[in-house]
């Protein structure tokens, strides 16, 4: 996803000279392609994320469209107040690329996991948050949002090449419906969508009919779309590689209450401060209950309990 995103950025940068790229010394072997084509529009600011966002804010004030790049947690947390007071506070077109969503950097350890970025950043109501589910949606999301007047945060996965969203379509504040079902509606985002799609297959074999809605933006959050697609489904199950309360689970709960949905809600994701030990993404998804098997088990459990 990351490489495709940068490739699309290069295409856009050919068309619009206002685009510049800043990195806090990350993106080795990824960003050189941009640097080599646009050496005068590429700046490695060093390991200094606060200054990176501050500089980008100043550049945007002078009419440029700066993209800043780092691993998600470094991009979102260290410079949070710079984002708040700068691009969010001034409504400036700074774009923050946070790579390695969730536990993409699993073996790198907790310092490199990004489990709270959406929750932290969606407090900044003027900041659009884009969470693509696959590389094609990452590309189309960038094409549709790069020239928005306000700031954007892109939550970008690292290496997965799966195609999940039909034609990779993206509309800010809308959902993508990947499947329709009677019993359960899954609502998911980012790379958890792939696990959900696989879980739906497992559940289908058990005669459980599941729908899938992929959420790819916060601020605006697709409240209306979600309530509409929930229809008369009995269960809504949110799945995310993020803290549930402040992420997708929390946002969907709010949408359900405000939309008078009668469905019940199960939220899968990070629910405890007791995080698993480091390991591969596959291992960590299993540990965190986000593998397709674990998701399917959780759904069987709630339905069985309901019947029992």
């Amino acid at each position, binding site marked *: 996803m990351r490489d495709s995103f940068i490739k699309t950025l290069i295409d856009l940068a050919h068309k619009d000279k206002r685009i510049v790229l800043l990195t806090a010394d990350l993106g080795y072997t990824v960003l050189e392609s941009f640097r080599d084509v646009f050496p005068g*529009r590429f700046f490695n600011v060093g390991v200094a994320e606060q*200054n990176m966002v*501050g*500089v980008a*804010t*100043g550049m945007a*004030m*002078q009419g440029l469209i*700066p993209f800043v790049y780092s691993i998600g947690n470094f991009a979102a947390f260290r410079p949070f107040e710079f984002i708040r007071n700068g691009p969010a506070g*001034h409504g400036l077109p700074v774009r923050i690329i946070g790579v390695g969503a969730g536990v993409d950097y699993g073996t790198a350890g907790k310092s490199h996991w990004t489990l709270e970025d959406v929750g932290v950043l969606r407090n900044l109501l003027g900041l659009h948050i884009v969470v693509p589910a696959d590389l094609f949606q990452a590309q189309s999301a960038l094409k549709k949002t790069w020239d928005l007047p306000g700031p954007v945060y892109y939550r970008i996965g690292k290496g997965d090449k799966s195609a999940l969203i039909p034609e990779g379509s993206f509309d800010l504040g809308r959902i993508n419906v990947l499947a329709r079902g009677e019993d359960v509606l899954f609502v998911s985002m980012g790379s958890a969508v792939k696990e959900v799609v696989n879980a739906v297959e497992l559940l289908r074999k058990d005669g459980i009919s599941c729908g899938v809605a992929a959420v790819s933006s916060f601020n605006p959050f697709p409240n209306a779309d979600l309530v509409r697609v929930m229809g008369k489904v009995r269960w809504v199950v949110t799945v995310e590689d993020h803290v549930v309360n402040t992420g997708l689970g929390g946002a969907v709960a709010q949408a359900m209450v405000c939309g008078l949905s009668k469905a019940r809600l199960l939220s899968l994701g990070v629910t405890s401060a007791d995080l698993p030990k480091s390991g591969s993404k596959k291992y960590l998804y299993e540990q965190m209950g986000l593998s397709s098997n674990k998701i399917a088990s959780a759904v069987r459990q709630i339905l069985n309990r309901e019947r029992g």
Partner: protein
Amino acid sequence: MKDLAYQIRRIILEQSFRAGVGHIGSALSIADILASVYGDVLRARSPRDKERDVFILSKGHAALALYAALYCRGWLSKKNLGTYCGDGTCLGVHPEHGLPGIECSTGSLGQGLSMGVGMALALKMKRSKARVFIVISDAEYNEGSLWEAAMFAAHHQLSNICVIADNNGQQAFGYTRDVLNVAPVENIWKAFGWGVYSVDGHDRLAITRTIRKSLKVKNSPHVIIANTQLGYGVSYMQRQIKWHYWPMSDKEYGLALEDIKKVGLKKSHGIGRA
């Protein structure tokens, strides 16, 4: 018009007294610096002039001095100035963008330099001749982000930046040397690759001369260490930490207005605009 630094001081006193708010000492500290910047060196036909020089008040808590300078420059109406700290005003204790002449909102220390550096870099890319002037406080040396920006500006040889450091030696809890001692700060700026100049921060002529001299050097950003006093111009406020926050009583206001007349007559005459 009478001496610009005097006018700025008078407005600071009038407005802070009327509004019953503090930060008077911090604003008085930079009155001569702003008289130099807005009276002598800042090139801008209007706040919307596309080729304008940029001014950022990184020490946002002294915004009243900036409002006074904008008023004297003719960019802020008397009516608007009179709304300072009122309900629904654009003129709060810290400056906010949207008011013509305020390039960016500040108030969180340690952020103004980064934004200014970004603007300077963009101006350089555009081959603009505009310069970026940034007034920082010496308390901002406590903020690590300031030094991130300082390194970046020097690395990119952003000679279109001129920082004026309001070196009044005091911050909220007392003397900067007692809070977090970084003196001699000139050496630190030099080590970071900046061109460093020291000046009497209450001598407008000297400040102006030093800024102009610094901007002729083209291989580094510039910092003018302006040695100032908190509350300068009002005898009972000078170097008194209470005037970082305190508002004035009726009696204190009367004394202050008399005091600044004496300073106003002593300083800075006869400098033309750039």
